[in-house]
């Protein structure tokens, strides 16, 4: 198989996986009133690429690569991938947000596969910097992947973490920004135009920055695998609510669960996109 044929095949596999993940999240959405569906759909390909194509996970948890979901509200995609990998159980997903279960709408440290308790924005990257520095001190070769929302870059604490990662030249740290251009309330480029450009901001803080299409698995994997002597910042251009037309770039889907009719329409759209 040629490289480009391999690439197309891998892209196709990722597409099927991501369709299934989105479908599973939609299924779960019918059991709860709210689950941050659009923020999970915007980073579906990102989290899929990290777990299924890039992370080195073996039998020794202390030397496995680390995934840290800084945008905690996007954790549904992490949950369904962890369930597929057998780290979480199907019962865990069944009992999502129920008193008898252990999974909530934000990740909780101590649950298998969860590297940090997030949910309040602007915490994850700082913790990731500490984890990455600890691994540097310990002399391990593991890499740490941290997924941030673009809204988190409005938190001053994220820039404190960006500065320290640059100062410490943490080349084992990869941060991926899910740049869907939306915060809870509004479009970033309209409401906060000074937010851009991002590439230059990242570079100025000592990071090796690359921008990719955040729904193109091949572009993501290529960028995620690249090594550098600096921390890597991947700005992934995404669409909030990606995969379901009526959810895309519509702020209400930041939090809401679809009704029964909306659910059926969403499933039809997902199926037709793959055909």
């Amino acid at each position: 198989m040629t490289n480009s044929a391999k690439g197309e095949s891998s892209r196709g596999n990722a597409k099927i996986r991501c369709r299934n993940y989105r479908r599973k999240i939609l299924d779960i959405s019918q059991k709860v009133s709210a689950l941050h569906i659009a923020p999970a759909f915007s980073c579906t390909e990102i989290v899929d690429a990290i777990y299924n194509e890039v992370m080195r996970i073996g039998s020794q948890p202390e030397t496995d690569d680390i995934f840290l979901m800084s945008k905690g509200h996007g954790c549904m995609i992490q949950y369904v991938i962890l369930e597929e990998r057998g780290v979480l159980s199907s019962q865990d997903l069944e009992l999502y947000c129920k008193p008898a279960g252990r999974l909530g709408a934000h990740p909780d440290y101590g649950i298998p596969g969860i590297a940090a308790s997030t949910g309040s924005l602007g915490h994850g990257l700082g913790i990731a910097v500490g984890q990455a520095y600890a691994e540097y001190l310990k002399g391990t070769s593991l890499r740490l992947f941290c997924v941030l929302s673009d809204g988190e870059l409005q938190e001053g604490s994220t820039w404190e973490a960006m500065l320290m990662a640059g100062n410490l030249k943490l080349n084992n740290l990869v941060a991926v920004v899910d740049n869907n251009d939306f915060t809870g309330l509004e479009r970033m480029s309209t409401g906060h135009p000074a937010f851009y450009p991002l590439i230059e901001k990242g570079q100025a803080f000592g990071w090796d920055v690359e921008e990719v299409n955040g729904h193109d698995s091949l572009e993501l994997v290529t960028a995620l695998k690249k090594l550098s002597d600096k921390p890597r910042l991947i700005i992934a251009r995404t669409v909030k609510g990606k995969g379901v037309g009526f959810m895309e770039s519509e702020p209400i889907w930041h939090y809401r669960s679809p009704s029964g009719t909306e659910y059926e329409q969403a499933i039809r759209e997902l199926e037709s996109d793959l055909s």
Partner: protein
Amino acid sequence: MRNRFAEVFYELGSQDSRICLIVADISPAGSIAKFRSEYPERFINTGVSEQIMIGMAAGMAQRGLRPFAYTIATFALYRPFEMVRDDLCYQNLPVTIVGIGGGVSYSTLGATHHAQEDVAIAMSIPNMNIIAPCDPSETAEATKWCATQNVGPVYLRLGKAGEPDLTSQAIDPWQFGKVRRIKRGTDVCILTYGVITKSAVELSNRLDAIGRSCCVTTVPTLKPLDREGIASVLSSFSDVVIIEECVSRALTMEVKALAFDCGSRCAIKSFSLKDEFIHIYGTHDDLLSAHGLSVETMFNVLKS
């Protein structure tokens, strides 16, 4: 206290490569400078950035290290408060936050530097442990405990420098989570902690001199509070005095609530910082006097 902390930290850090110090542009000289030059990678200065100081400490602890985060008490606890709460306490990680200048010991720097409600705030966070040593020796004991514990986050509230020894003749040994008698007495018992213990000892001597035998019991661990130890004080003395260099929503309220809960009949008098910002500048004692915490004022209240 600062210097004793630095000496003990250097000894511990030399023996245990998991121990790291993260500072936010404030660092003690002496032994810490030596630690920095000998183990440069385990001394991290985040600069004037307290949120990343706490965030990094959390991440390092999750990966097996034993970080201490060190700066002036107000900046260690207030500025990065949500990192303290979420990253350290919610995740229950063995990180020690060292707050220097607890209380109002930065007496000429204004209220931005006064940690006058730090203990009350820290007490209200689940999983948080709070230790406020009264002298260099308790500081040494507490630092050793912090470096080896597996309990969770600790707020280690220290003074500055030059605090006298108050515990070399103590009756009880220092123990995490336990009150400690440092001076015997039979009529009155003073419960106190931190730098102001010096005034408590002075006050107890004045009370002894007028025939009211006064015990001094320190409460070096404010959380978890030694309820049994305090209940025993409440049942053994007819008069109990609480002195704290903090607003009253800390030890004072805890002891009074405990007295109510256990049906104690002893008389309780308390002296704490007022619920007011301090706008005067002077010595540490000047500021304490302004809030009714001078030995003279307290003695006049108690002698009658």
